[in-house]
């Protein structure tokens, strides 16, 4: 009789213990979607076909055979204000490569207003509908890509640091040649 009582007591205690542990179990962490590569490095550079600021038509395909630097910029982006003149200066030194700047402002007038006071002598591609921006999957401004002669993306970089970025870009150009 006593042993039955003990057994029942043990079963009840075990059930209670399970209930307590189960209720104390923290909610599982939300499950994130599987990781997948988002960088374009190693892949063919998506085509860019859009008008230039001077009215001519630009296609990236027309530069095949040359190393191309593509910089996406917007008028409200502060680091772009430093990056574009630096790239312009680089383009004057390096006639063997092509550097293009892609403006992604929605308002066409914004690019002209932004570039007005800057010394930028680069071809400016106008991507107001952000079609090229979307193809390159750019998240933040500025973002720069280096494309080799065969049209493969070799380097991708977001942001611009006056001290280090230009040297990094030049190294990437050297490796892309």
């Amino acid at each position, binding site marked *: 009789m006593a042993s039955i009582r003990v057994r029942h007591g043990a079963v009840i205690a075990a059930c209670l213990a399970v209930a307590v542990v189960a209720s104390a179990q923290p909610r599982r962490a939300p499950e994130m*979607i599987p990781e997948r590569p988002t960088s374009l490095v190693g892949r063919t550079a998506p085509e860019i076909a859009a008008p230039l600021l001077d009215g001519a038509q630009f296609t990236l395909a027309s530069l095949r055979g040359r190393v191309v630097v593509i910089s996406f910029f917007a008028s409200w982006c502060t680091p772009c204000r430093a990056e574009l003149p630096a790239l312009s200066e680089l383009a004057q030194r390096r006639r063997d490569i092509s550097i293009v700047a892609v403006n992604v402002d929605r308002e066409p007038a914004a690019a002209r207003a932004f570039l007005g006071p800057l010394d930028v002598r680069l071809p400016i591609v106008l991507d107001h509908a952000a*079609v090229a921006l979307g193809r390159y999957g*750019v998240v933040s401004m500025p973002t720069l890509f280096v494309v080799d002669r065969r049209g493969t993306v070799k380097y991708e970089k977001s942001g611009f640091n006056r001290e280090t970025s230009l040297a990094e870009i030049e190294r990437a150009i050297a490796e892309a040649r």
Partner: protein
Amino acid sequence: MTKKEPAKFAEPVMRQWPLYLLIPLALFGTFVGVLMTSHHERETYGTEAQQGAELIGCTESATVNCDIVNTSAYSELLGVPIATFAVPTYLLVALLALAALRGRRDALPMLLGIGVGAALYSVFLFYISSTQLHYLCAWCLRLYAVNAAIPVLAAIAGARPRPLPSLRSVGFALGVAAALTVVAVIAQRSYRSSLLGTEATVTALARREAASVPTVRDTIDPDGPAPAREFQVTTEAGAQATLVIRPQDAWLGPRDAAVTVVEFADLQCGYCKRTSAQMDRLIDAYADRVLFVFKHYPMDPACNPGVQNRRHARACVAGRAAVCAQRQRRFWEFTRVAFKNQHALDVDTLRAYAEHAGVPDLSAFDACMSDPSSAEAVRRAASDGAALGIRGTPRIFIEGAIYRSGSSAEQMARAIEVALGRSAEEATAAARSIREASDAPIAEIAADVPPTRHIARGDLTFSIQTFEAAMSASGQAESGKHRIPATDMSWYAARDACSAAGMRLCTEREWVTACQGAAAVDDDHDGESADDLVEGTSYPYGDYHDATRCWDGREQDGVRPVYTGEMPGCVSADGVFDLTGNVEEWAGATEAEAVLLGGAWDTSEDHARCYRRNASFGPGYANRRTGFRCCSGE
């Protein structure tokens, strides 16, 4: 007999060089007067875009801040900036110096008099700046120097207090001064009108009149002054102090209530916004038995002698607007609207809130906003808080005990119940009935949750996908639990995926309506609904952020979107999930209207709200953060 020569008296020497120095100094003073007037008007009455620029020549530091000094309650006299009065004063000084140079010796004593008066007023302003505002203003210091120089230079030039100039001369000078003052004040008034009547204000308000303005409810503000009361409270430092309720304080409830709840709050303070929802619950439950009093405590030394540092630049003007709404018996409704739309508190927006809150006479509201008495009312309330040694906001006093932002409505209700005479057990049970909605456990999502929700709010009737859209193998947008939300979607791709599913992209108005649980009103008729007054809740689940509910504010590396329905607490009043956070969602019927709403997983808690809109890029923009959901219906 030769004609008698008139007796010659030795004329005191009149030096000319101090007068030549005085003229450019006075012109400099005039320039500073104009500069400070325009700065005062822009900062106090301008739109948010017009405000905020640091005044040239006044770099802010630990001791210098022109914004605070030049917008303080002391910066206006009879509704006119004191800097405006400087303009005619210095012009008069220049004219008098010129007159003296042209031989009018009686101009010198007048210069001396004006100079002494200006110097004494400078001492007073310097005292106020250092002891009340705790900041100095660099341009004011330059004017103090000019003011000190005027009597000194006038004295060096040969000014003597006696003999006094003729009455005619003084009358003429006063006439010139009055004329110059009238011109200066008219110019200042025109500038203020141009600021208050900017395109944004006029069109927004005019359009709002034509728009579907929410029906104005009967005011809950009581008629008459607050019942004057005093009671002892324990301060944060543990000392005993007297809390004073003044007739001009905002109040609600029976005048003879046995229990009083006093809240000190700042309309720009996020914790106060959160607490305001709890206070609303208490008011709903106890306004028939308890006296509620609201006292302003803006965290800005410009209108609060109890604080040293400016934490909330818009708090003083917002407090002032609340006082002006209170004078037309719309205080409680105004503060409700202002807290809900705390992200925008510039002068013209506050005016729009007043209108939304049902303030009947907007002209009187405008007049009140520029009347020093409204600023004084805020300062008086803040001084009462300062006397209690308040260290932050909100602070709620319930029968002498102090409660802060962490206190729940249930906790405060319990204190009220005890004060009303209930036993501890009865109070606990009674308080439970007003437990906050967010205290409720987050329910798991049912397995059979429908893929779309039908929403009918206001004039809008539509269906919206319950979850963020996932892409089927055939390129259709699908909605369901535990799916991978589509990313790298441009507006074009999202539009096509909705179309393939027999649906369309949601309009911005539909999306915001679904998120905030109330029909969105395009207040300014610019076609955008996420830039207007928040009619419903700020987040899909409530008015303040709860980190456990949506997949937002996760800025760490390696964080990616979650499967749909992984955050069951991130649900709107209509049962739509993940509207804020996780992935940004494309909305908009046309390319021109394309906009990303709601923020993504890495959007900060302050920004991942129902009115988060990202229209920086065109419709082709696509990356790992961009997704969508579809709508259907009218």
